[in-house]
């Protein structure tokens, strides 16, 4: 396996923006094929930003006839390619017809047999093509599921890793004022080896126009880890590929911010309502 270096990790930014040189792209893809959880996590995290950046593009109305032209064109071209593929495969295995003299009756029988044989060949070929397509689709599905399983394994491994810490966040005085007698429950499961963390919360519905924001408190100050969007029941489960360096991380905290989060990623603008020491 190619060694995992900072240089390779840095290429993940260019990978999600699609602006690596061919050499850099080839090296990173070869590295990813060998399976690298750190690079996959980085691509997952940065890819989210690239998608959001592109998705914020002003929407333009496509000309109405374009839809029909594109969809019909896709299906027509797909069929044509299938036919051409079939013709190529058909040419590869020509059916030999031996020359021989025969009586007219026997000739008709031979002709009939040849027709039956040709028809059965076509049927067989179509069945084989269908099975080949199904096999190809099944193979792609297996690859996709393997990727999914690998990703899930990485996250479930956090729960059983010996270096994992479970940090329960408690309300601060500002938090008690905010939540009253029923504060939310927030737990951070943090793996200091991989720096991955899972945040589980209940009873954390933000007031209208507000967002809860998670912070890592480090020896150089707070670092924003993202917004906590709970469902309508106030529950949220969030996975962080990189929650911070265990040697500098001292606590996790949650602040109540205006919608969209604090203006700077290094300081909460709103009150810190929950906090918990990381145990280092």
């Amino acid at each position, binding site marked *: 396996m190619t060694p995992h270096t900072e240089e390779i990790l840095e290429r993940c930014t260019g990978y999600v923006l*699609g*602006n690596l040189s061919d050499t850099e792209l080839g090296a990173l893809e070869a590295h990813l094929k060998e399976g690298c959880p750190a690079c*996959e996590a980085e691509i997952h995290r940065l890819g989210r930003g*690239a998608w959001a950046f*592109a998705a914020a*593009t002003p929407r333009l109305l496509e000309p109405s006839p374009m839809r029909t032209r594109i969809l019909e064109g896709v299906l027509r071209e797909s069929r044509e390619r299938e036919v051409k593929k079939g013709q190529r495969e058909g040419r590869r295995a020509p059916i030999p017809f031996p020359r021989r003299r025969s009586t007219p009756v026997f000739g008709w029988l031979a002709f009939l047999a040849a027709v039956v044989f040709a028809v059965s060949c076509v049927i067989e070929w179509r069945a084989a093509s269908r099975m080949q397509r199904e096999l190809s689709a099944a193979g792609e599905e297996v690859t*996709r599921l393997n990727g999914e399983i690998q990703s899930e394994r990485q996250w479930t491994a956090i729960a059983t890793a010996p270096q994992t810490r479970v940090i329960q966040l408690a309300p601060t005085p500002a938090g008690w004022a905010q939540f009253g007698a029923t504060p939310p429950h927030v737990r951070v499961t943090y793996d200091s080896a991989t720096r991955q963390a899972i945040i589980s919360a209940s009873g954390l519905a933000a007031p209208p126009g507000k967002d809860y924001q998670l912070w890592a408190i480090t020896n150089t100050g707070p670092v924003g880890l*993202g917004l906590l969007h709970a469902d309508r029941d106030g529950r949220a489960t969030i996975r962080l590929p990189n929650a911070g360096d265990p040697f500098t991380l001292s606590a996790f905290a949650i602040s109540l911010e205006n919608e969209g989060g604090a203006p700077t990623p290094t300081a909460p603008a709103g009150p810190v309502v929950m906090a918990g020491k990381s145990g280092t």
Partner: protein
Amino acid sequence: MNGQERDRSCLEGMRTGDTRALEELYERHNGLLYSVVLRILREAQGTEQVLRESWLQIWRGPGGYNVARGNVGAWLLTVARNRAIAWLKSDGLPQRAEPAAGGDVPAPTEDASANAAHRQMSERVRRALDVLGPQHRQVLELAYFGGLTQGEIADRLNTSPGTIKSWSRQALVRIGDLVPHEDWT
């Protein structure tokens, strides 16, 4: 079934040749794909050609989607964006020096029906980039919409490739943190 589940269900349907699944996925995502590709190419004929090639690739290879890398919409966007950049860089086509800015597209009309979620996301991204500084936006636009490599961007902005990498990453992390988890996975 939420939007992500519907998208994955469409890909499953396309594996078995279900054309209605293709149509549904098209309805759900082509508006964004069209807007992004047109912004890159700035001409309608090439945009339609790129979109047809992109949807053909998606129809013939839905297995190319890797759930570990993000949502279906992001994959569709990557397919279309990469084809648009390849089209832009291919021989015999007019090259341009600058990526299209938001108001620079000779496109017909803005889609007034764009939903509230999209408007909210646009506003959040704009605010996030305002906080970081204009150079972060410029780097992302040159990379994503202009197809420039990190080295080319560094030359253009008269700075080092390391700085470009740093600005790119800061911006992507900052913007990515605004995306609700359920919209991404």
